[in-house]
């Protein structure tokens, strides 16, 4: 650990915005991933200028800086494996402008996604990339992870909604990237590069985001399947049919059991269910889409298909989906839901095979895994449910993950659909991007020559996360 000048940090942000007590550092060493590491100090800037001063200090002294929003990342993006300053961005939480004429809003990075949508709602518009974690995720964290969510199948991911941003570089310089326009073809469009950079290139201090009108009509349906494969194939068929769902989610039997147990949603305990939604300004158009999706589900042996415009019913299912990951911990009292192999994407036609593969691999390694996700956008999530005290379960999990990602790459899929790479997914990421790792390293160097921004993540992350990083669980040897 390098000596850190706490007095200097307090000079920059004020005494009340710095914490160095070990019990606070311990808390900030975790996020929603399986990893843990101790930062050296937590610093909470309130202004862009303070961020600039912190960066200058850290850059001059070779001290790592890890930006942190809600700390809901699932892959250890904010876990400071090389120590350093944890830059808690939650105090930069102002919605600066809602510009209805030019169809954009400007926000500070600590604004919580749901808060932004609440503010936009009164104008009849919404910010659509919204991940399931929108009650806690900040815009800064969503940008850095290129977050997406249930509605991304129709409205796109964060990268599609970001028009521009202000970013503090490691040397403290403030740059304005992108613009306030819908389109831009002026060079490299570095703002799009910051999206998904996991805090390794610069600190976002302001973002300009587009929004869209809230549709007049939303209709949500559920189709049940006795075979996971049928549900997977229905997804491919729906997307290939030219249908435009505003949501198309898969939940498998493990996920259904877990949400039913937690929230009593009364979902049928079948092998898999698809939750689909269509939205629009004209009811007939929504009916048309829903009808089309229902028919496709029927063709793929979907049963008990039912759809509803009732906001209460929709809200209930929507909330069940939002709370799915935490609910998985209730599947079995002895098993905890761990964020491992947490997300991936494959071409639509491979969805069914991937879902099957997940279960086959899990059975073979004697662990419980679930397959669910925003499948309409090609995204599949899995979680591993295991007794985290048992080392053999971790070993089995590791093997299972390797096999699953091997499959994903073999069908031209990708390691992360939306949760990012962080630490846990670095192994597969590096194999997937093997021929462009040098380019990535060059980009990192251009932005951050002293390698102080979130070092040890993405392509710099250790290959074997189980042994190279601390796990946040107690594992018996």
């Amino acid at each position, binding site marked *: 650990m390098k000596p850190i000048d706490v007095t200097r940090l307090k000079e920059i942000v004020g005494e009340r915005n710095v914490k160095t007590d070990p019990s606070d550092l*311990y808390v*900030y060493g975790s996020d929603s991933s399986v990893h843990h590491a101790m930062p050296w100090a937590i610093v909470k800037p309130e202004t862009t200028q303070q961020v600039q001063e912190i960066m200058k200090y850290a850059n001059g002294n070779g001290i790592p800086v890890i930006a942190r929003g809600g700390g809901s990342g699932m892959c250890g993006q904010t876990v400071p494996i090389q120590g350093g300053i944890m830059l808690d961005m939650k105090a930069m939480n102002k919605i600066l402008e809602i510009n209805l004429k030019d169809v954009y809003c400007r926000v500070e990075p600590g604004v919580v996604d749901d808060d932004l949508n609440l*503010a936009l709602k009164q104008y009849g518009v919404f910010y659509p990339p919204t991940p399931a974690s929108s009650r806690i995720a900040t815009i800064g964290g969503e940008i850095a992870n290129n977050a997406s969510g249930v509605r991304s199948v129709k409205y796109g991911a964060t990268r599609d909604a970001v028009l521009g941003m202000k970013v503090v570089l490691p040397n403290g310089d403030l740059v304005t990237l992108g613009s306030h326009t819908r389109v831009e073809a002026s060079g490299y469009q570095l703002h799009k590069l910051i999206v998904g950079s996991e805090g390794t290139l610069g600190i976002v201090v302001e973002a300009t985001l587009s929004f869209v009108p809230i549709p007049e009509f939303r209709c949500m349906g559920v189709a049940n399947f006795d075979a996971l494969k049928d549900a997977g194939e229905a997804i491919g068929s729906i997307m290939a049919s030219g249908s435009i769902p505003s949501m198309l989610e898969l939940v498998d039997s493990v996920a259904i059991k877990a949400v039913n147990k937690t929230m009593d949603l009364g979902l049928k305990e079948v092998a898999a269910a698809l939750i689909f939604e269509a939205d629009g300004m004209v009811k007939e158009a929504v009916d048309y889409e829903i009808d089309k999706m229902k028919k496709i589900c029927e063709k793929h042996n979907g049963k008990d298909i039912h759809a509803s415009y009732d906001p209460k019913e929709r809200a209930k299912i929507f909330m069940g989906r939002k709370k799915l990951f*935490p609910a998985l911990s209730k599947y079995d009292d002895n098993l905890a839901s761990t964020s491992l192999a947490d997300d991936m994407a494959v071409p639509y036609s491979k969805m069914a095979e991937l879902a099957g593969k997940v279960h086959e691999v899990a059975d073979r390694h004697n662990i419980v895994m679930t397959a669910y996700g925003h499948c309409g956008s090609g995204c599949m999530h899995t979680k591993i449910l295991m007794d985290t005290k048992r080392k053999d379960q971790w070993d089995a999990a590791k093997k299972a993950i390797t096999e699953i990602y091997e499959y994903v790459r073999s069908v031209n899929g990708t390691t992360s659909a939306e949760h990012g790479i962080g630490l846990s997914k670095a192994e597969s990421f590096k194999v997937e991007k093997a021929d462009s790792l040098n380019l990535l390293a060059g980009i990192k160097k251009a932005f951050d020559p002293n390698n102080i921004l979130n070092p040890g993540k993405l392509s710099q992350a250790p290959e074997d996360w189980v042994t190279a990083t601390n796990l946040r669980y107690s594992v018996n040897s």
Partner: protein
Amino acid sequence: MENKIKEFKNLEKWQGTLASCIRCGYCFEHCPMFKHTGWESDAPRAKIITAFGLITGEVEPSESAADKMFSCFYCKRCEAACSSGVPLTEIFTDARKDLVEMGLEGPGTTSITKLNCARCLICVGACPHEARNYDGKGIATDPAKCQACGICLEVCPAGAAKIENNFGTGRDELIEKASNFLNTHESSKAIIFACNWSYFPELQASVLPDSETRDNNYEILVNMCGGRLEPYLLMAPFLHNAWGVMAAVCPDDDCQHNGNLRAKKIVETLRNTFKSIDIDPERIQLVQIPAGDKSLFQAEIDTFVDKLNNMGPIR
């Protein structure tokens, strides 16, 4: 990470449960402490992480670690919202028991007794959690039992019962917030005091542009349990030209501290006082809102503000 020490007799049994908390952080939005300080280390998730660290030996049982575990109003909203089914406050209580054995007890949010206590023992009888006792010399609070509902503060005639760390929910802090709102918003009319159950927080942490809030005519202030509403607090907004004050508490049988019933009595008394000095008693109101019933709460507020608009300011 290996198992290290195991001297947390009560806490230890929760080790498996602590692992099943997926640390999603969905509890942040429900916690008035987190919303007040903005520090993650004050959020319920942080306490779970700390409890885990205490068991594994990664967190020293220090004063600051203990302070986290002793800081909680036991509103239990985090617990109700937790889809992983983690019984957070039971875990906090067990951690407290062990920490007390080690000689660590906060201050946290535990209510204490100042020297001006007259030993009338009213607080001992009023405490719904049997946390206050007369030990022959003075009144002592059991920090493992105190749930910081604040009822002792409300009943103490000498003002000797105190909670030192109020996280923005103390009487003086609330009065300051209320006066600040009333003095800076030309359109301001009402202050709504709400317990953490009757009010579902809308914006959890973000700040709206000034243009969005300039014309607000009421402000909602979370005071934790209705049992803490003192007449002085309810009357204070009127000194800053409020047209009305509303208190929102849980329905009759729903309050775990029975603070709602106390609040009802206090509001009733104040309404009678208003009548006797010829002020419309409707300017002070109590409503009972089932947990998280946002639409009912909003409807009650709208009706109240409409009524105030008809009445106009107090002359």
